[in-house]
């Protein structure tokens, strides 16, 4: 999802990322970078999310952004359908506005560090005036909250990480 800019959509190749991660292990390198035809991929020992500048072109592509923040950094929170391939990533099942608490001023349903039970309400996504409760697909610990309160989310946006 992009708002009011027009950066190219980021589309990292998870397979490539995994294989490069393996290479890091093998070789004991701390970083690998590879660039070709306007794509650049860069993996580093401690980094998890990677960014490629898309194979082709966007209006603003002449200065091409490459996000390389660690997973869960807000910079990555907007990749929506892209990135966030961790199995524990909870993704938005619909487009709308996310609310982390039942009502303004009330404490959030969950905080980073909380242990949650399967089916427990984690947040709400409002779409067409309907409040949709988003529940935990499995029990676990909330290790990241990617979305801000009252923040719009698109389909597939990473919401939380439950491990």
């Amino acid at each position: 999802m992009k708002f009011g800019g027009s950066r190219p959509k980021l589309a990292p190749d998870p397979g490539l990322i995994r294989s490069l991660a393996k290479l890091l292990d093998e070789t004991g390198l701390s970083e690998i970078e590879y660039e070709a035809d306007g794509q650049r991929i860069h993996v580093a020992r401690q980094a998890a999310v990677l960014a490629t500048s898309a194979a082709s072109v966007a209006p603003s592509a002449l200065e091409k952004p490459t996000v390389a923040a660690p997973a869960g950094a807000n910079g990555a929170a907007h990749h929506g359908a892209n990135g966030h391939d961790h199995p524990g990533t909870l993704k938005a099942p619909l487009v709308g506005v996310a609310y982390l608490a039942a009502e303004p001023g009330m404490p959030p349903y969950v905080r980073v560090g909380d242990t949650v039970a399967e089916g427990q309400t984690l947040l709400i996504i409002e779409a067409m005036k309907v409040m949709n409760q988003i529940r935990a697909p499995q029990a676990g610990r909330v290790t990241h909250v990617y979305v801000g309160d009252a923040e719009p989310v698109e389909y597939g946006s990473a919401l939380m990480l439950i491990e």
Partner: protein
Amino acid sequence: MFEKVLIANRGEIALRIHRACRDMGIKTVAVHSTADANAMNVRLADESVCIGPPPARQSYLNIPAILSAATITGADAIHPGIGFLSENADFAEVVAEHGFTFIGPKPEHIRVMGDKVHAKAAAKKLGIPTLPGSGGALRSVDEAVAAAREIGYPALLKAVSGGGGRGMKLARDDDELRALLPLAQAEAQAAFADDSVYLERFLDRPRHIEIQLLGDGNGAVVHLGERDCSLQRLHQKVLEETPSPGLDDAGRQKITGIAVKALKELGYQSAGTIEFLYQDGEFSFIEMNTRLQVEHSITEAVSGIDLVREQLRIAAGEPLGYGQSDIHLRGHAIECRINAERAEDFRPSPGRITEYHAPGGPGVRVDSGLYQGYEVPPYYDSLISKLVIYGGDREECLMRLRRALEEYVIGGIDTTIALHQRLAENAEFQAGTYDIGWLERMLSRSA
């Protein structure tokens, strides 16, 4: 005028609408499925929202998701494009109910023209010539036989809610009709969840000629001439041209006059097209498309009028602002629909574009979201580029068409460029003596 328009579509037409908006300084919101995250229209849009997974029902036909996207981006109007929700009257209504402007006709006009039987009745009432046929859905075999005898054989069975040829059966006599009626009904039921079929006289070698119209909803209506879309395969248009090589000025005058008069009476708003079969100097109403059409660009080439801009202006409440006498059609234009299909057997060919070079220079327009490295997704229709050629006359246009086709390179997937090259070299096409059956006959001969 609108400040921000949400484009509820994909592919080249979404890009086309984006361009019209940007040409007017309007910001755009692209909505897209996960399969289209890297599409050119999404890249170029001022804002974009992923609205669902690849299947259209969950994304491009997902009305709640589209309205939510409009809400969170603060769009003030929605352009439905072509296909998907563009002829869904309920969508047009719910868009308005949610406080957005629907860029298209009034819902009631979409609704009446969306149902073949009602549409034909409405057309008749508006003075538009129609094919003799059974008034409405056939309730029994006997009723069908009676109707067929009145209409005359061969007679064509058609699905009331149908389109694209599904549910169509040709009966040469009573026995065939008795045998085919249940089949047609079953097909109609399967394809459109509605088994009602009706009968119409069958024409053996008609042309498909359609009239482009613009109305502002306040009685002002103009036509922008005709388009000849007779080159079809499986009822899908392949190549269109304007003016039609098979229509003379008298015929043009007559039918455009009828069409304009009809839409004035209707109080029609936005762009619309009335499709006709044309044979032996007679026009017969096929249907009216209450939306933009893929082939609108050839009309733009000869009229100098940007049809999407006009849709936006009209939806914003502006009057048409010009009359028929202000419209000057000049030259000749041809559109080639380039699909991601093998030219030999039309097998779909999605995949990665490994090289791309579009033709350019004078008289050449390309509407396409293709670029080197783009992946053509397998989920949607196979139209990937529209090559629109303009020439001072048909001969110049055909010469330039050949030149542009020989320049056009799309690598990594199969495309129908080769088919269009065959057409451009074909003597009968050059002579303009083709009807809606010609292309399939030509292909079967060569197969």
